[in-house]
């Protein structure tokens, strides 16, 4: 039972991390109508910036700040240089151009930082386990990730509902011509939204980089999961991204834990683990298919 609760926490942490990725993707799509495959590269840039700064200064907080700044700057740069030309294009051109950006960023990063993974560690003040009520020992750092993720979700909610920028973002989602008609500098708004999405991805990359490995190509698997998340949640919906992310996080973690056990009831142990884990790796895609059959535009997507 305790193990199950711990796994739920793990699923939550994974989900929250996916949310940071998915939020930027879904915002960019909602406001600008752009599909950005290079979002995973921004995640990687955040992790590399954090590792570089942590290596130079030894400060984890500075490293986090650097990840935000570097990813936002990279985001703003590609928005101005490339992405801006793609808003009026069809999705096909967007897919191809951002695919090209992945190639450039991945190999460029390898050229700059080399082929070996970089080192980024959890700071001392966040390392080690903490005791939760009920006798669960749980990683302090992972709790912090859950906390940061939920705080970002709350912050995004407030940003979108309570601020002037949020009003413009919502206006942009509703009608692109309208915000131009309102006299809002649309290209600045777009750059801002894109950089915001990039910064969230960079933050996710840095936080995850401390417990995983910082290496070229780390972004793409997460990117694809983030796609699954926003397809489930409904494209353009930040709320959908949160719900979808947590759903995917829990499904993946609990599926990987429970399926082999379930198969173990009916067959011999080692083939049960093999089949169970094979099935578990497909579980979130099956979840996605089911959601699509029931609601083709996702849980919170606009009705077609």
């Amino acid at each position: 039972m305790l193990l199950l609760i711990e796994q739920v926490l793990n699923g939550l942490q994974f989900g929250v991390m996916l949310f940071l990725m998915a939020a930027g993707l879904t915002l960019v799509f909602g406001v600008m109508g752009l599909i950005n495959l290079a979002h995973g590269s921004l995640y990687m840039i955040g992790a590399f910036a954090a590792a570089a700064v942590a290596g130079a200064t030894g400060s984890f907080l500075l490293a986090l700040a650097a990840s935000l700044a570097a990813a936002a700057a990279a985001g703003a740069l590609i928005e101005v240089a490339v992405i801006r030309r793609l808003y009026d294009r069809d999705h096909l051109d967007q897919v191809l151009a951002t695919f090209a950006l992945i190639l450039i960023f991945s190999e460029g990063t390898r050229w700059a930082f080399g082929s070996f993974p970089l080192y980024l560690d959890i700071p001392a003040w966040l390392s080690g386990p903490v005791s939760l009520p009920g006798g669960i020992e749980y990683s302090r750092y992972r709790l912090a990730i859950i906390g940061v993720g939920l705080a970002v979700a709350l912050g995004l909610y407030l940003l979108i509902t309570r601020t002037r920028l949020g009003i413009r973002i919502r206006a942009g989602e509703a009608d692109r011509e309208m915000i131009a008609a309102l006299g809002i500098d649309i290209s600045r708004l777009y750059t801002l939204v894109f950089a915001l999405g990039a910064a969230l991805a960079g933050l996710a990359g840095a936080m995850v980089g401390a417990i995983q490995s910082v290496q070229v190509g780390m972004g793409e698997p997460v990117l694809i999961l983030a796609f699954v998340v926003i397809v489930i949640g409904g494209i353009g919906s930040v709320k959908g991204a949160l719900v979808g992310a947590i759903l995917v996080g829990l499904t993946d973690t609990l599926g990987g834990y429970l399926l082999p056990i379930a198969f173990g009831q009916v067959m011999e142990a080692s083939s049960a683990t093999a089949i169970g884990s094979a099935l578990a790796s497909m579980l979130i895609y099956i979840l996605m298919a089911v959601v699509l059959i029931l609601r083709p535009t996702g849980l919170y997507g606009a009705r077609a």
Partner: protein
Amino acid sequence: MSRGIAINTAVLALCLAVPVYAHFAGEPFLLTLATRAVILALAAVGLNIALGHGGLISLGHAAFFGIGGYAMGILASHAQTFTPIADWPLLIEGTKSMPVIWLVAMVTSGLAALVIGALSLRTSGVYFIMITLAFGQMLYYFAISWPAYGGEDGLSIYVRNGFPGLNTLVPMQFFALTATVLAAAMALAHVLGRSAFGLALNAARQAPARVEAVGVRPFRLRLTAFVISGMITGLAGALFADLNRFVSPTMFSWQLSGEIMVIVILGGVGRLFGPLAGAALLVTLEHVLGGVSDYWQVYLGALLLGVVLFARGGIIGTLAGRDVAHG
């Protein structure tokens, strides 16, 4: 129109010149490269039917490529070890015969396309892109973790499969075989594009409401196109596996889906000769740039970016202008 013909002729002349040169210069490797280009072009001809005519941006065509590859791998590996694939409810033996393998590859990838298409086509636009991508990943992970046929290590086939009357181990003969298949597929794509079905499919891409108003369901048109598209790409997968005498889950990887799409776009979306031109260019780039720098993918990325931003319509589109689009 005449410029279009001139360009297509040039592409063909190149397709002739390379193998002839390779043959007489004693450069069989060049022939291997040309065969690779032809097979990738075949995969792209498949995608082009869905993408160019149907407007279906599938980022998961590697799924069909991989299924075709595994159809070959599974059949040939059973034939190689003389073990039946199934002995109940009926005995199924492996085979080393290309025509049988091709048929199985096309049927299985067509069935997969039917299921994936029926689910994915409930959506459109960005959803469709992401969902096809996700289905491709699902099969990728399945192939990796399914131990029966080598998992991540893949399957090696020691001797290339046979085709009646040919010695497929001779590079030139295998090249000629793949080129003939490509020619047939291009002829099929051409006929489809001009048929009543092609007309309705192209209309569904541009004005779906109009197609509904004339009493035709865009969903069924698209699904049909998606299945045909998946079958051709699946056939390409079987040939690709035979070229390499090897299958592995990387045939399912999303980078491969991206590569097939890049070929279609480099060549020119909806152009009959686009896939051939695009595949020839990509394979050449891979080969030439790869020799120039370890970081050659940076240049490839920059080139792609340039094509998207400044040379819309791909090679053939740029050279020919708009007159032969969807021809």
